[in-house]
């Protein structure tokens, strides 16, 4: 990936033999992600999945294939903590945690382990990370044909709390002739490994990303924290933002555990105001994003696509 390890990074799939694991392994293999092994305890040595060999432990995969950079996790939510910490203990540096409904104390334990082992994670409850022309980690796009049709390489980095909006915004940009550097679905939960501010900082340091699209939603403080990074000059690249949940009532949670308004924290208006004050362009409708992005790219003389 361009902001996360690149094409040569070695990837394993934990939970490769399950329903989702199988389906998404096909996507990743077909698109050219460097998937070297799968891990499902108890199924080691069984027939490979789409040509990918299966092991009982991450360590066994490391013994055969050398150091592993990334794991993409598809095990059921109650088993996620064990799987991810196992991968960190075996030297994996980035975990993409796809499953939904991972208990929050388990996520905190994963976060502590990440600190201890010097690793990072995205999710839980993420569709993953995609860099057009390079590869997919997770399940963005569903199948390789769609990925090739929907996403084009270019200067726009996308970070989103909604999986669906990640995909659609990238697609609408492609339709408008504008390519993407990397698109990241940070995950819909309240505690996640790489929230918006972290991803935005990665985009700031990434030479391929010239403009950042931020897809936020009500609840929590990720959007306000990005505004803070902008106001304090830590993020200087232009930001085009959308905040979902304008019509939501206080105290009601709309599917995403993170999207809940409690008291005055995390309201729609508060987020929009702080982003605008920090200099971001905030749109009411994601379909206006391509036009706003074009204006900025034109002004800065940045090409829409990358070869």
């Amino acid at each position: 990936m361009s902001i996360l390890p690149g094409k040569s990074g070695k990837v394993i799939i934990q939970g490769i033999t399950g329903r989702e694991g199988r389906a998404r392994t096909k996507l990743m293999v077909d698109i050219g992600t460097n998937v070297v092994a799968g891990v499902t305890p108890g199924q080691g040595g069984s027939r490979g999945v789409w040509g990918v060999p299966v092991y009982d432990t991450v360590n066994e995969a490391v013994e055969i294939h050398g150091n592993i950079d990334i794991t993409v996790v598809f095990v059921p939510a109650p088993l996620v903590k064990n799987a991810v910490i196992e991968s960190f203990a075996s030297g994996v540096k980035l975990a993409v945690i796809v499953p939904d409904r991972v208990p929050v104390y388990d996520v905190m334990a994963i976060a502590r382990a990440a600190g201890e082992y010097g690793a990072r994670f995205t999710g839980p409850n993420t569709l993953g990370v995609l860099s057009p022309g390079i590869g997919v980690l997770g399940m963005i796009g569903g199948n390789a044909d769609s990925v090739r049709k929907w996403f084009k390489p270019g200067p726009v980095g996308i970070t989103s709390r909604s999986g669906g909006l990640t995909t659609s915004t990238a697609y609408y940009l492609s339709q408008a002739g504008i390519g993407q550097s990397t698109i990241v679905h940070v995950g819909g939960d309240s505690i996640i490994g790489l929230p918006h501010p972290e991803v935005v900082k990665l985009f700031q340091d990434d030479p391929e990303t010239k403009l950042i699209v931020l897809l936020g939603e009500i609840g929590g403080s990720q959007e306000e924290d990005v505004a803070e990074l902008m106001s304090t000059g830590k993020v200087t690249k232009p930001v085009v933002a959308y905040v979902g949940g304008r019509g939501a009532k206080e105290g009601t949670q709309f599917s995403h555990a993170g999207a809940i308004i409690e008291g005055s924290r995390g309201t729609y208006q508060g987020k929009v105001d702080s982003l605008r004050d920090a200099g971001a362009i905030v749109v009411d409708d994601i379909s206006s994003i391509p036009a706003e992005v074009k204006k900025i790219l034109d002004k800065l003389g940045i090409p829409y696509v990358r070869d």
Partner: protein
Amino acid sequence: MSKLFEYQGKKLLEAGGFKIPRSMIIKSISDAEEVFEEIGSGVLKAQVFTTGRAALGLVKFPETLKDLHTYIGEMLSQSIKGYKIETLLFEEKLDIKQEYFAGIILSTGKSSPTLVFSSKGGSGIEEIVSKYPESVFFLDINPDKIPLPFELIPLLKDTGISGRILNLLSSSLISLIKTAIKNEAKSLEINPLVLTKEGKIIAADCHMTVDDYAVFRHPEFGIEIARELGHPPTELEKIAWAVEKDDYRGTFYFIQMEQNFKKGDGVLGFHGAGGGGSMMSMDALQTYGYKVANFCDTSGNPPASKIYRAAKIILSQKNIDGYFGSGSGVASQEQFHSARGIVKALREVDPDFSVVFRLGGNSEDKAIRILEDYTKDLNCSVKCFGKDTSVTECAGEMDRMMKEGREERGEDITNPEPHKFDYSFYTVTGGTVSFDYSLCKTCLSKVCIKECQGGILKEVNGVPVLNITKTEATSGKCTECLACEVECLAIGNGGGKIFLPIEGLEGGVS
């Protein structure tokens, strides 16, 4: 976040070694005598999820049995924020010397829970922090390495606590930390934490929320629906939860937003897909002045059967003026499964209003064809769009169709009902797949076999049968893709029929 009542939180605190007031639970007036005999004059508190109970008359101090009778009667006849008050807590009165605040909170971006303590109790923590910052300390807790009491003493001293209370408070705070971690609390707040004149530290109140995703590890909580609804679960929400609870294939969220509305109020049945896409779609409807009767999200690649049940539940809401569905627009999942589920529901309910869906994403052309073509003979007008039509345009189309009024359609549609079932098997969610072979025999398409997602049907003597055992089909090999009914009605001879029960929905839901 699922909330626990004060009395539930206090029980968990007590189990963790915390002192709580002597107390009893009251469910009806008939409990009064026994309780009064046990506790004497004390404090009666309604068990509701709201702060500021005293101002609402939900905290009373009965001195006599007669008072207690009166207050119980008053409280049990009230509702707060839509919750009927069902449980009261009666506690001994505490001789308060000092009030503190103690709590555990989880914050976004942190990998550990935070302990908060203030030597000034009573008011809300935001107020305490802004008015008396010197009275507060925060401490991040590593659940793998719970602090020992001595580590808290300097922090307590900094808030102005001194003397023997330091020992009592530090060990109480350790109990609080352990209780929060053991029960996977997202927040656990004791306000006030009380020092009595006798020198005991007691939790006088308790607000606790637990992690919805961890509720499966805590059956002892007795939580009915592990989701934040903002109101007590309605009958329909309970029905929806029963569909979702044990079916881990994809997600189905359902929250009722409006009830008691009339036909013509512009309240729509709403069917979203994906949290972000759903919120965006509701916002789009709002810009055209429509309200949604419900929030719904079916996403994460659910089977057609789950979409069907969701659609039936949405359509069962009385007086909705339309049915609108959209996700983010570019779904990674195969969209025709959604289309089949919606078609089956629409064919069974046949509402008299407009239906607009946006099923953009993988296989959207097939999804649009199924949804529009297979509903042409119905009373409702159905339009379906793909990823290149924005949700605002779809909401605009809904608005146009509703204002235009629907065209009068022909006579009632006739679903060709199979007369008898020659062959049946059960599905994983208690459904039944049946075939009427008198119709199947003359069917040239055999579309049931061609379109079956699991590939579990084969043709024998000109009719479909399973190519696996019935037990295998029931264990999940039949993915409930609904092709053998929906495609059969449209392309085949109408010999296939799937019955999918929705517990509680038949038998009349108002």
